[in-house]
């Protein structure tokens, strides 16, 4: 090798490297610049909207979370039939824990979720709402009734579910209708509620709602309990000792089953079990308790059986799960996805602000829930929703109020637990 040839060779190599480097850099820069446009273009051209669905799939609320999931599972076919764009569902489990819900929401957004749906529980939904607002990602609440969630001035949070005060006022109106229909009413009740965010919201609102509603009964005692309680014998003994004629409740699924077991064991059949929350109408409740599940009346957000979409949803659920009744969990989880798909179609983009603006302008009349349809007020709340009274009857659910949506007369009073065979 001649002197200098080595340097020349190195220089030539270096020159090549520089050129290659420049070329590669330019290519990479071009690719990076083009990528967002490509994504945006693809999304505009009908790429599925990435929807993070947060539900309590494990923990104390696992039964209800998994029931909500059925609403997610049956949604794609119906949305397709409605001519709405496809959704790419990203599932996450809140483990029935507020902090886990918050962390999972952050993670979903980090992984590319463009819209969040969930989370059944008010405490968990409150945490998710804070994350969604902070990150500027639209959040559609499927089920959560604590009023403060939509009182914070959030721009990206929407709720298609009644607030606690809406549930209470409808519940009392429906109760009065039932009392008039059966010609009997309890003179006293004991109010038992879970001490979580939803339960305490209902407890705070009940006195004001009662005085407005002019109910025939008075509340003899209010008993709060832990939703994760494993034994409710003391609570039921205390309720029984008040001598109240009926039970007024705000519960969850596990505690509803525990309460029923204790009512049977402590040989107390009240005139009525009037529930203003989940638990008592869930399929798991009906199947686990069999004949003992008959009779409780739940005053809950429900579906209008006369709406065409209700029939489509019911048919899809029957096809997927023949032995499960359509209920609040399926209805409102499905409607949250309906809102997401409808907004994505109108926005024509997955841009969070465009999506939020589209959700704010929602006006869906072809829906499932009772009321004129889905539309949001300035706070992001659908204030037009109406509730119904549902009674458990032979493992099925019948609507007993309001009269316009009823398909059965209420059975009154509760048949004695010890005479059910």
């Amino acid at each position, binding site marked *: 090798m001649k002197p200098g040839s080595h340097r020349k060779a190195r220089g030539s190599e270096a020159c090549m490297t520089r050129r290659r480097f420049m070329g590669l850099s330019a290519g990479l820069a071009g690719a990076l610049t083009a990528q967002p446009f490509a994504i945006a273009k693809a999304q505009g051209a009908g790429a599925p909207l990435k929807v993070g669905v947060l539900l309590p799939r494990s923990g104390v609320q696992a039964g209800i979370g998994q029931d909500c999931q059925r609403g997610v599972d049956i949604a794609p076919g119906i949305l397709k039939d409605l001519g709405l764009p496809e959704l790419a569902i990203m599932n996450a489990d809140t483990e029935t824990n507020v902090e886990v819900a918050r962390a999972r929401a952050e993670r979903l957004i980090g992984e590319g979720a463009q819209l969040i749906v969930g989370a059944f529980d008010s405490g968990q939904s409150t945490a998710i709402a804070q994350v969604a607002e902070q990150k500027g990602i639209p959040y559609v609440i499927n089920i959560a009734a604590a009023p403060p969630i939509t009182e914070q001035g959030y721009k990206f949070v929407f709720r298609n579910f009644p607030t606690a005060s809406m549930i209470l006022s409808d519940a009392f109106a429906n109760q009065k209708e039932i009392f008039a229909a059966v010609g009997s009413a309890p003179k006293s009740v004991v109010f038992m509620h879970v001490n979580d965010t939803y339960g305490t919201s209902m407890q705070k609102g009940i006195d004001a709602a009662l005085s407005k509603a002019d109910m025939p009964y008075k509340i003899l005692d209010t008993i709060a309990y832990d939703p994760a309680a494993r034994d409710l014998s*003391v609570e039921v003994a205390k309720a029984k000792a008040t001598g109240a004629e009926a039970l007024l409740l705000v519960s969850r699924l596990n505690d509803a089953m525990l309460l029923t077991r204790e009512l049977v*064991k402590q040989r107390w059949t009240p005139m009525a079990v009037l529930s203003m929350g989940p638990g008592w109408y869930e399929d798991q409740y009906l199947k686990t308790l069999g004949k003992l599940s008959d009779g409780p009346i739940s005053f809950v957000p429900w579906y209008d059986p006369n709406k065409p979409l209700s029939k489509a949803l019911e048919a899809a659920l029957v096809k997927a799960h023949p032995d499960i009744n359509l209920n609040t969990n399926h209805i409102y989880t499905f409607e949250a996805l309906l809102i997401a798909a409808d907004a994505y179609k109108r926005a024509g983009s997955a841009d969070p602000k465009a999506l939020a603006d589209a959700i704010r302008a929602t006006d869906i009349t072809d829906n499932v829930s009772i009321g004129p349809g889905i539309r949001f007020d300035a706070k992001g709340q659908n204030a037009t929703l109406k509730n119904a009274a549902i009674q458990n009857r032979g493992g099925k659910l019948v609507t007993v109020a309001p009269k316009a949506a009823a398909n059965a007369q209420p059975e009154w009073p509760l048949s004695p637990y010890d005479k059910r065979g």
Partner: protein
Amino acid sequence: MPAEIYLNVAVSGVLTGLVYGLMALGLSVIFGVVRVVNFAHGEMMTIAMYLAVALFSAYKLDPLVMLVPIAAVLFALGYVLQRGLINPFINRPEHSQFMLLVAVALIMVNALLIAFGPDARGVQTSYAFASFALGPLIVDANKAYAGLAAVTVAGGLFAFFRYTLTGKAIRACADNYAGALVVGLDVKRLYALTFAIGSACVGACGSMMVLLVDVTPPLGPTYTLLAFVIVITGGLGSMAGALLGGVLIGLTEAVGGLLFTPSAKSMFTFAILVVVLLFRPQGLLGKRLT
């Protein structure tokens, strides 16, 4: 409030407390002899509960009938655990033992999660909704059976330690370690046997507990904590103290919940613990350290 309500709630609390007491008894026996605090105690009970649920689901075997076989399985588990894993840690610092048993507990919880999933499971026996009426007193049949079984098992355990040679040998190990070695007792084997007996206790307790509450994998730490509270209240290492502590805690939870607010039931449990630690740190029936 009618007087019979107090009576009903008190009886219910005592019966639940007896089951708690049996659970704590296992912890107390292990600590009293082996001087190792079993931080996986509640998790071992959860394993027993899942065994009871699995046997009931598959073969409709009543948890009370399966009490002895399940206790035997936990006995074997305890023996193997002590001989294979805990024995090398006997003379190591307490924090090493603590870390080991916490690790064992975590493995147990996660193994149960993998095997059974996170959902609550229970048994629906023919007497699941039964109760006995004795005048104004209504007693939950499940609690009555579980309480009775707890008393029987505890009685058997007391008799074993008092009247059998092996029981006496174990007590000798607890009273004087060096003395036990001098007279030729196989202390390592007796330690393993003691850990196995404590585990069998908690196994029997799990069979009863599944009649009272549904089981989930994360249930273990709650009961480990409860067992500690009971044992510290009754006196660490005292068998009678564990039973007394269990009954006291069960009764306090029930009556406290009735008199005040039920959602603060566990507050009363910890209030008792604080009072005992302040005024009788050795526990109600514990021996004062000299």
